[in-house]
């Protein structure tokens, strides 16, 4: 790919990268920084990109590294909202009957491959992650997108391991409900 083509490809990817960086960092200025660093690194490293993967996959990989680097450098102050959200009561009481069964049985989500091939599904997924409270969303993105282990997440968010597991569980339950309601129970997902 020549320099000009790479330039315009990267420019086109910028909004997507920003969106994901915001989901992870929950801060517009930090997201801008991370994406700028990423695009710069992509331009500098273009010679090393042999086209072995999609440009997008390659650049998203750089973005992940840049964000993890920020964590390692301790560049961002720890947010207290994560601690508060972990400690707060959220029992999902409305989801379960007193005997521990669900009030509404979970839907059959059908063929995973078919869902993952739909671009619109990922818009709904992003919207659902965005709807998580900030601290919870950051922890969830660290675990499931950056694929960090819980030790690293606890350390970064300065929360106890117990709170970390609780918060990730709550995030998964909320995300499950949100996807079911906004995708699988609708025409689009059905």
């Amino acid at each position, binding site marked *: 790919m020549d320099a000009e083509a790479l330039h315009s490809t990267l420019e086109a990817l910028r909004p*997507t*990268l920003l969106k*994901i960086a915001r*989901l992870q960092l929950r801060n517009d200025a930090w997201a801008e920084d991370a994406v700028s660093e990423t695009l710069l690194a992509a331009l500098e490293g273009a010679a090393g990109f042999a086209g072995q993967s*999609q440009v*997008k*996959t390659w650049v*998203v990989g750089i*973005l992940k590294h840049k964000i993890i680097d920020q964590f390692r450098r301790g560049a961002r102050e720890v947010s207290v909202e994560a601690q508060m959200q972990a400690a707060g009561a959220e029992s*999902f009481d409305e989801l*379960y009957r007193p*005997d*521990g*069964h*669900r009030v509404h*049985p*979970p*839907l*059959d*989500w059908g063929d*995973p491959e078919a*869902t*993952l091939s739909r671009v619109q*599904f*990922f818009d709904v*997924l*992003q919207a659902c*992650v965005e709807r998580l409270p900030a601290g919870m969303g950051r922890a969830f*993105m660290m*675990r*499931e*997108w950056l*694929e960090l*282990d*819980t030790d690293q997440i606890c350390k970064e968010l300065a929360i106890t391991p117990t709170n*970390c*597991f609780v918060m*990730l*569980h709550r995030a*998964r*339950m909320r*995300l*499950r409900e949100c*996807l079911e309601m906004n995708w699988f129970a609708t025409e689009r997902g059905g």
Partner: protein
Amino acid sequence: MKQGWLLIPCRHAHELLSERMDKPLAPGDRFRLWLHLKVCDMCARVERQMDFMRRAMRRLGD
């Protein structure tokens, strides 16, 4: 489903399903979850959904 040492409610099964994605379960919990999933189709469904959400999240932005 009755509750007891071996039999856990769906609510607890969901907690264990999630916990299992972050660390290995204690042997007792692993067995209780396994047993629950054997007999509870609805939780087996949630198990597949958890796996699906993980796959989907890893493809975010790809």
